[in-house]
């Protein structure tokens, strides 16, 4: 590992800290910037005295700066506040729901990688140098249509077909594998299409590179060319959009959870917004945002390390 | 006309900086051509870009007709731009694909001194195109409709439209076929005669430079290693690098010679002390361990009885390193 790489990794980690600070501040400001009084709608029909007491309880009567320091301090102690509605600690709410979301996102990611990648590489091999123009048109049409269809619609259609018409799979809830299939599919379709399009273009680009021509001129067997020369380079290129694909998966999960009534972070977030339960909204947003940022930084660092130029001092 | 004194151009800063041009001193005469020869990494293109104001100067000075223009603001000012123009290497990327030839020419004419009416600008655009052998029919067409040679002519016409005194020609024929090169070179010579232009002709192609230039400077790793009248530099080179170039150059009238230089150009970021060429010099410390001065001292351009100056510790004798090189080389 060279000094240059260590310095770059250090820079990334520093950037991560900076971004996390910005995220925490933004999440904190969410409650401050809400139009009107955050407490009012939740507690309709309460007296002014009770309102003041609640305000003191949640620390909303202090100055913004004090509230901020309290918030950050609490964060470091694992305290994300309490739900306006149930007084339950937000941390507990999140802990109860996070597994369901992780399951969903994880399953969807697996589908995206293991379906999208091979599909795209195969399509690239078949359409390289202008072969099978019609197949190319078909590929692009199908991927753009499926990719543009809203995932909540796909989710609903899937539920309709498999749960109502054929009663094969359950709709709603989480915990079992069967309950994971339809939501994972619904989440995975759009990102799979995005990844497939990008990977196909990257594969075509790699196939047109001079070093592939060299391998061909050496009459190496096709499988060797693809596995050893094409795939590693495509993988790294695909990693650069890994962050975006991950964001698509997380975003999709948030919506699809609501369609399938899975008790996850997405439903917590939306329910919280609809009932003005700001601590819950803050907690869910924070966890989702931090996850995304950390994963992106990890991907960036991996790319830096894998870069062949990293090996030279 | 244009004087460069101890000019340096740097990329980056601090520890990671690269001195692409290192204390270069040159004179570009009025109405004549100075050829600038060097291989990749020699800094010649960087120097060309610095002269036309695309890069800042880190040290030394630039004087145009005696007036100082070292600050980059001075070289990006309209007054300077009207007198110094540039033609680039790649005809396929030096013209804006979204502008018609007419639009590009009218824009260039508009940068000339003085106010011209729209009609006058159009007429001047046509005139500039005609002087490079193209006609008014080119006005409405787009660059992609022309061949490489024609595009290069358009680029020359555009540089000419401003009525400059000095044109920097950066590898202008390197991307063209051999049969087209000669046409462009002839055109450039005719234009020089007709308009009294000065040229800085930058190229890695020694033969072409020898045909076009009255004076020549040879660059290696950012420095001038030899300079003087073209006939002397190419005919009786005094610096071992120039000699190696001449020997490596294939020619129709002689047989092949073994490669005179070993190794590759060192990394410009990690230059060893002393002479930049000593790592490859056929008559340097590699073959003659007694020549340790090459490892310690950076040689300066040394004048002698011959008209060409060479930056070599052992070039002082008449015939300089030439005879020694001939003897040392098997």
């Amino acid at each position, binding site marked *: 590992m060279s000094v240059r790489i260590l310095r770059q990794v250090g820079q990334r980690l520093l950037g991560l800290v900076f971004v996390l600070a910005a995220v925490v501040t933004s999440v904190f400001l969410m409650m401050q910037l809400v139009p009107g009084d955050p407490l009012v709608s939740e507690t309709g029909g309460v007296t002014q005295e009770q309102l003041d007491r609640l305000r003191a309880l949640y620390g909303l009567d202090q100055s913004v700066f004090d509230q901020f320091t309290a918030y950050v301090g609490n964060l470091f102690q694992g305290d994300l506040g309490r739900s306006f509605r149930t007084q339950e600690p937000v941390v507990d709410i999140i802990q109860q729901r996070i597994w369901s979301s992780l399951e969903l996102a994880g399953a969807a990611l697996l589908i995206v990688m293991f379906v999208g990648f091979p599909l795209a590489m195969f399509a690239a091999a078949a359409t390289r140098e202008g072969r099978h123009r019609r197949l190319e048109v078909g590929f692009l049409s199908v991927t753009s249509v499926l990719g543009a269809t809203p995932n909540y619609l796909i989710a609903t259609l899937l539920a309709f077909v498999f749960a109502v018409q054929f009663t094969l799979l359950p709709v709603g809830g989480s915990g079992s594998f069967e309950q994971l299939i339809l939501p994972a599919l619904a989440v995975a379709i759009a990102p799979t299409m995005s990844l497939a399009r990008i990977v196909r273009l990257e594969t075509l680009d790699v196939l047109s590179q001079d070093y592939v021509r060299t391998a061909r*001129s050496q*009459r190496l067997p096709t499988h060797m060319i693809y596995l050893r020369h094409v795939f590693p380079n495509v993988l790294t290129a695909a990693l650069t959009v890994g962050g975006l694909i991950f964001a698509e998966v997380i975003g999709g999960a948030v919506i699809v959870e609501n369609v399938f009534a899975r008790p996850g972070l997405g439903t917590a977030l939306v329910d919280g917004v609809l009932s003005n339960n700001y601590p819950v909204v803050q907690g869910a947003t924070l966890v989702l945002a931090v996850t995304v940022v950390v994963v992106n930084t990890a991907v960036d660092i991996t790319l830096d390390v894998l870069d062949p130029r990293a090996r030279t001092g | 006309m244009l004087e460069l004194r101890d000019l340096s151009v740097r990329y980056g800063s601090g520890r990671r900086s690269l001195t692409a041009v290192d204390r270069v001193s040159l004179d570009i005469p009025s109405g004549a051509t100075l050829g600038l020869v060097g291989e990749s990494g020699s800094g010649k293109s960087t120097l060309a870009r610095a002269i036309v104001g695309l890069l800042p100067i880190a040290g030394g000075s630039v004087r145009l007709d005696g007036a100082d223009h070292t600050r980059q603001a001075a070289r990006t000012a309209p007054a300077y731009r009207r007198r110094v123009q540039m033609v680039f290497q790649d005809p396929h990327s030096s013209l804006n694909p979204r502008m018609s030839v007419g639009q590009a020419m009218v824009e260039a004419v508009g940068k000339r001194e003085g106010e011209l009416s729209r009609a006058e600008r159009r007429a001047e655009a046509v005139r500039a195109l005609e002087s490079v052998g193209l006609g008014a029919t080119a006005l409405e067409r787009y660059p992609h409709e022309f061949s490489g040679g024609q595009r290069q002519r358009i680029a020359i016409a555009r540089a000419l439209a401003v009525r400059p005194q000095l044109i920097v020609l950066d590898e202008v024929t390197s991307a063209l076929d051999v049969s087209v090169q000669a046409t462009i070179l002839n055109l450039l010579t005719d234009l020089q005669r007709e308009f009294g232009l000065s040229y800085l002709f930058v190229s890695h192609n020694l033969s072409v430079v*020898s045909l076009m230039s009255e004076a020549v400077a040879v660059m290696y790793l950012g420095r001038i290693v030899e300079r003087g009248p073209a006939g002397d530099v190419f005919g009786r080179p005094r610096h071992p690098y120039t000699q190696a170039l001449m020997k490596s150059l294939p020619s129709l009238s002689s047989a092949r010679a073994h490669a005179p230089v070993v190794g590759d150009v060192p990394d410009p970021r990690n230059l060893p002390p002393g002479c930049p060429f000593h790592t490859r010099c056929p008559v340097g410390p590699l073959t003659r361990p007694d020549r340790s001065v090459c490892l310690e001292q950076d040689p300066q351009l040394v004048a002698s009885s011959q008209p060409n100056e060479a930056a070599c510790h052992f070039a002082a004798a008449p015939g300089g390193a030439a005879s020694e090189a001939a003897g040392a080389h098997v």
Partner: protein
Amino acid sequence: MTASALRLSRTGMSAPVLRAFRRAPSGMIGAGVVAAILVVAVLGPIVFGDEAQERDLTNASQGVSREHLLGTDALGRDILARLIVATRLSIGLGLASAALAMVAGILIGVSAALFGGRARVIVLRTIDTMISFPSILVAVFFSVILGRGVTGALIGVAASTAFHIARITSTLAISASRRDYVDAARVLGVRGRPLVVRYVLRNIGEPLTVAASVVVGSSIVTISALSFLGLGPQAPQYDWGTMLTEGVKAIYRTPAAALGPAGAIAISAFAFAFVGEAVARAMNPRLWTAPSGRAARAVATAPAATLVEQAAAAGRARPDERVEVGGKDGPPALEVTDLVISFPSAQGATEVIKGVTFSVGEGEIVGIVGESGSGKTMTALAVAQLVPYPGRVSGSVRLHGRELTDLSRKELDSLLGNDLAVVFQDPMASLNPRLTIGTQLGQAVRVHKGFSRRRARDLAVRSLAEVSIPAGETQLGRYPNEFSGGMRQRAMIAMGVMKEPSLLIADEPTTALDVTIQAQIMDVLHDINARHRTSMILISHDLALVKQNCHRVLVMYAGRIVEDLEADAIRTQAVHPYTKALVGTVPEIGQSRTGPLPDIPGEIPDPADPPPGCPFHPRCPLAVDRCSVERPPLLHRGGGHRAACHVANEGVE
């Protein structure tokens, strides 16, 4: 003439853009649909407003019927009417959000290109961070702080999309600003707004237009997603998204209630996308000079078979062109007979190699010289059986007597993998940057000769030493980017020599290298030729290089060999006018300028449209009438010298 130039400069590009746009059918359809959608958006609430509000509780949640084409909702209202009325809000929000996102995104993206150094890095990093957040999360954030409703949804979706646009714009703008024409404009004195608009923005307009149309579609979709979740327009406002929410609740009984709004969303997204793509294509000046529809179609209707036959007949080798078999010392290493390579084109088929016949003897170095369009590289590719798709090759290629076109894929791989080495032009790109030199050098012998890894490594070290790369063991573990250009090319040669081929093809091996390094590479090739008696083909545009380094030279022009003679004789005994002209254009150092340089007037012919008769005759100083009618055959003039010229060959049998 000048009037039209004036018109052009005033109207910019609008006239030809419209013409090009009209030519694309998908664009016209999309434009039609978009126009229809906009009309519905504007007029919908006016015409159907009342009907959309009519409640009819007795007919609530009905399916498709004649009075209600999409059924009714929970309050008995006609869904189709509501769909039409909702168009205004959905499209309006989508367009507004997209417009906001485009303006903000382009401003941010262009600024990243205009800044340099630290500022640029900061802007780019910020963009990258912002786009790593899921759009829905950003949208929810803004919904919360701006309150649930139209404004929140609008700003939220725009904020997220803006950074995606900024990313695309910054990448495009940065690469556009690196092009020479931007520097050229700067040198002219163009600066500020004209520089940004004319030189940067206009050149990134195409992809941005496509992006804009995609953004409109995705904005419509994302805003409806927010509405679906309850974060969009609040009651009594409604858009397609809120209608979809209601429809989804009833989907099992009355699917039309959901399919209606879903269809509307999808159709609008696609229509805008088609229009965008068509506009983007129309903006490309390259399309403005393409032949109009009718002309293009007329050319293409000539039956392809006839055209191919005609072209083939014109390029056939005459019987007197057979090459004497047997090179200098015994049977030739390579014999190419009547090689023709054609590519399908609008006119049927274009021949880029029009019947080439030559041979390379054992241990002989043959040079192939030509300019662009001569076909020299394609000839090499044909010998190596690497002609790219969709090229068609005909003719015979025999390597040591074995006919390559007869072999199966497996036999070909085995023969060529062992017996032929190719060295390409750009050593920087010809080696895989992610694999070590050792791995790449060893591949061929391990596959084709079955060597073990140890044996392959030993052989690699020896080969590297042969090309003057010492300390082979350490070098094997290095990556290509650690080598300089000259070293990489030597490694490529080592890679080829390792398998002890009988033929090595070097295609412009030193064009990308400096002249001093070129000399080193030539030394290496000669060394290999002397030591292993490897036959070689050296392809180059540099006549002097070929003369000095080859035994024999083939001069190619427009897909044919025009002369074949001994390298030493080029300057003195060449007879073909093109060869002589080429010799004339090679400047000799020290040669004094006594007038204009000899050049070759005219242009290299288009392979699809060659001149009749001799391809060189329009540029030839010796051309006579016969030259424009009859193609000169490549005739033997004795001593292995062949030339294809009527005038030069007068009196030759």
